[in-house]
């Protein structure tokens, strides 16, 4: 089985080299036979890689410790369900998994443009094949998960205990899909540019769809990661601006800019060059993430896939970036926009400012992440650039972005006349003051939180105004209000789906603002029988149990928790000690309500059950997790395809 895996990697390597060469030759000699051949070559790669994926999983499930990677990342005592996903717990396997994902996405990417963007096919197939070649080559030569050990050990080293969590089944695959999927819009758009048909805006719809697919994957990946950190790392936070978190955030920022500015190209035929640049930046940042994740120079809490391969990825990133810049430069003429901005106060310039802000945040994040390396090489002294720095630098910019999210939807395209502006601003400014008054009554006093919450409420007010206006117009046309509402949403899905996502973003922001400014925490030294009060919660430490497993000892504490008037029940935070790894994994027990989370986690545990328990009251975190389905629904809604009719006619604009 292991040999099958090894050989299939070799075959996949040969085929992807073949596809790269043949597709470029096909493009050069305009030979459709060569193009078709290279395309079918690419189509076979995922099926061949599937063999190696299956064989590595088989090796894990059957505990074949003769394979070094299996030996390093699993053992006999780990829960058997985790052996199915242990393949992406370390460097070599996660690389194989990413490559497999890339090959699958490549096939879908190529199929999606097969008919509509025929002219770009040879180039897109070429780019994707070259990418695949690089990845498979790295696996085969430098990080082969099928390398054998000379002596077969009796037991493996085991999976990093921090990975033994339900999140392991979803977060890594989704995050990896998100990061690698940026390659598809990159390859498609660059393929179009290389084919010399960049002026033809037919690529916009497909580019937008792929941009949104990677965007939603990155969004879900980041949110699952935050949720995981919140529940297992036991410090009550969800985002620490850790280098690896940043490396997932940066491509997300670039893709967020992209999926917005592509709308300007879709509706107004502008920002053509800018969109190409954005997708190149997005892909570069995604590759940078792989560099940082795989043995980058910055210390991070996510050192699961650490290796010495990082520099290889850095080199490849620089090469792709350089080539992309060359392509944009040589084909710059066809990327000029047909139209220019009409006025400063217009939807287009709001989009442009939003784009610039997202890129600024990405740049500052990058700057803070790599600065320690820079500082060390200049002054020889190591420094840390941590959360307070990023909060200070990026926080205000995020607030400005939310503000733009509030005014963007109500500002018209092209040119806003003064009357139009006063008209659309009437209701929002009134509602805005009402909201401030309301927040004032709620005793929101922190200056930054007050600004944050009020801007969030402005977003909602403006969206409501947009919806009410649209529904009324349709109601006058004879529809019932509810029917009118759904018809309105259905009629312009990219737009209203986007608004639904905006609502999700507001929910998320409210959670971030609430928990950043109003969370409180305290450590309590407690023995069984003790009772304490914190933040209006009354919690009694009833007893504890110790449970021994093969690989760990779990100490579980039982707390009877009551809020002001009602009983919440028994919460069971626990701490698992893995002697082999010398790691104690703690898991907080959380009682989550829309108002606030009551979070309790053991930070020290003695043998007699006494210990230090950290209690946190995190306001509004609930909203952050609830926003995820809203964001996903909004994205799917806006991606829902139109019937053919709308495709070639001028897009519907309100």
């Amino acid at each position, binding site marked *: 089985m292991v040999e099958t895996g090894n050989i299939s990697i070799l075959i996949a390597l040969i085929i992807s080299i073949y596809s790269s060469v043949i597709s470029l030759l096909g493009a050069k000699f305009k030979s459709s036979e060569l193009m078709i051949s290279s395309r079918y070559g690419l189509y076979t790669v995922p099926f061949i890689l599937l063999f190696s994926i299956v064989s590595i999983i088989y090796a894990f499930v059957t505990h074949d410790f003769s394979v070094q990677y299996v030996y390093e990342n699993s053992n006999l005592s780990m829960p058997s369900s985790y052996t199915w996903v242990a393949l992406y717990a370390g460097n070599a396997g996660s690389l194989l998994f990413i490559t497999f994902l890339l090959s699958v996405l490549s096939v879908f990417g190529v199929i999606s443009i097969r008919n509509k963007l025929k002219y770009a096919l040879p180039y897109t197939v070429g780019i994707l094949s070259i990418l695949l070649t690089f990845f498979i080559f790295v696996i085969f030569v430098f990080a082969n998960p099928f390398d054998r050990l000379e002596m077969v050990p009796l037991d493996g080293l085991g999976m990093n205990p921090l990975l033994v969590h339900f999140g392991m089944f979803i977060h890594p695959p989704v995050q990896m899909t998100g990061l690698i999927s940026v390659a598809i819009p990159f390859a498609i758009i660059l393929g179009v540019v290389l084919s010399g048909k960049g002026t033809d805006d037919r690529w916009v719809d497909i580019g937008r769809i792929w941009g949104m697919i990677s965007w939603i994957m990155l969004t879900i990946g980041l949110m699952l990661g935050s949720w995981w950190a919140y529940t297992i790392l*036991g*410090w009550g*936070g969800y985002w*620490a601006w*850790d280098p690896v978190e940043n490396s997932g955030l940066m491509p997300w920022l670039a893709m967020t800019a992209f999926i917005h500015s592509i709308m300007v190209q879709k509706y107004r035929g502008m920002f053509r060059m800018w969109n190409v640049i954005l997708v190149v930046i997005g892909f570069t940042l995604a590759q940078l993430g792989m560099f940082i994740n795989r043995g980058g120079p*910055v*210390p*991070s*809490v996510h*050192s699961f896939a650490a290796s010495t391969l990082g520099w290889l990825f850095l080199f490849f990133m620089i090469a792709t970036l350089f080539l992309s810049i060359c392509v944009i430069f040589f084909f710059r003429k066809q990327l000029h926009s047909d139209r*220019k*901005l*009409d*006025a400063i*106060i217009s939807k287009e*310039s709001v989009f*442009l*400012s939003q784009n*610039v802000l997202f890129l*600024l945040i990405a*740049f500052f994040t990058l*700057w803070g992440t790599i*600065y*320690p390396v820079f*500082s060390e090489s*200049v*002054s020889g*002294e*190591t*420094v*840390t*650039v*941590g*959360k*307070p*720095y990023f909060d200070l*630098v990026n926080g205000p910019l995020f607030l400005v972005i939310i503000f733009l999210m509030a005014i963007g939807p109500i500002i018209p395209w092209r040119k806003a006349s*003064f009357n139009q*502006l*006063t008209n659309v601003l009437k209701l929002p400014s009134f509602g*805005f*003051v009402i909201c*401030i*008054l309301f*927040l*004032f009554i709620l005793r*929101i*006093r*922190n*200056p930054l939180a007050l*600004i944050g919450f*009020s801007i969030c409420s402005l977003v909602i007010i403006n969206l409501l105004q947009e919806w009410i206006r649209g529904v009324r117009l349709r109601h006058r046309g004879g529809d019932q209000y509810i029917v009118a509402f759904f018809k309105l949403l259905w009629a312009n899905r990219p737009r209203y789906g986007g608004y639904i996502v905006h609502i999700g973003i507001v929910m998320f922001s409210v959670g971030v603002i609430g928990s950043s400014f109003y969370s*409180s*925490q*305290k450590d309590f030294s407690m023995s069984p029988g003790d009772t304490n009060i914190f933040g209006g919660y009354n919690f009694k430490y009833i007893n504890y149990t110790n449970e021994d497993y093969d690989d760990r000892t779990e100490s579980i504490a039982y707390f009877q928790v009551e809020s002001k008037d009602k009983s919440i029940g028994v919460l069971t935070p626990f701490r698992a000690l893995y002697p082999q790894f010398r790691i*104690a994994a*703690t898991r907080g027990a959380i009682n989550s309500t829309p108002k606030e989370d009551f979070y309790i986690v053991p*930070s*020290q545990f003695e043998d007699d059950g006494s210990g*230090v328990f950290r209690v946190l009251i995190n306001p509004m975190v609930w909203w952050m997790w609830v926003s995820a389905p809203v964001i996903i629904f909004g994205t799917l809604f806006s991606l829902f395809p139109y019937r053919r009719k709308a495709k070639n006619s001028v897009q519907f604009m309100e």
Partner: protein
Amino acid sequence: MLNKKIINTISKSKYSLFIVGYIFIYLLSCSNYAEDSLTNRIVDLNKNIMCPVCPGETIDQSQNILAVQMRNIVQEKVDQGWSDEQIRNFFIERYGASVISTPPKSGIDLFVWILPPVVLTITIVGLYFFLKNIKNKENIEDN
């Protein structure tokens, strides 16, 4: 020109009322905002001191024994009446500058702090001139 018109109309119209109202309530809200208790100070300090043996984690986050000890030291020093600065220096002397979660605001590391505001200013100015330039071109075409 449009800007002037907007400013004029805003100052005359009822919008001024909203803006004044907003600023008034905002200032009123912020004016009696105060948060400073001992526990908050300790948590803030913990959140700004890195655990030297756990990559990328502060002593507030980490479950490591050293982090626990360091948290206790912070608690102790605060109880003894040390200032934040003194406590930070205490740890810097022992573990080097990287024990603090942000680079020092002096020497070469000033650069990390200065770059974002400088880039931000350049971007805003650049964006302004870019947009303004478009306006001018359009006016010329109109004429």
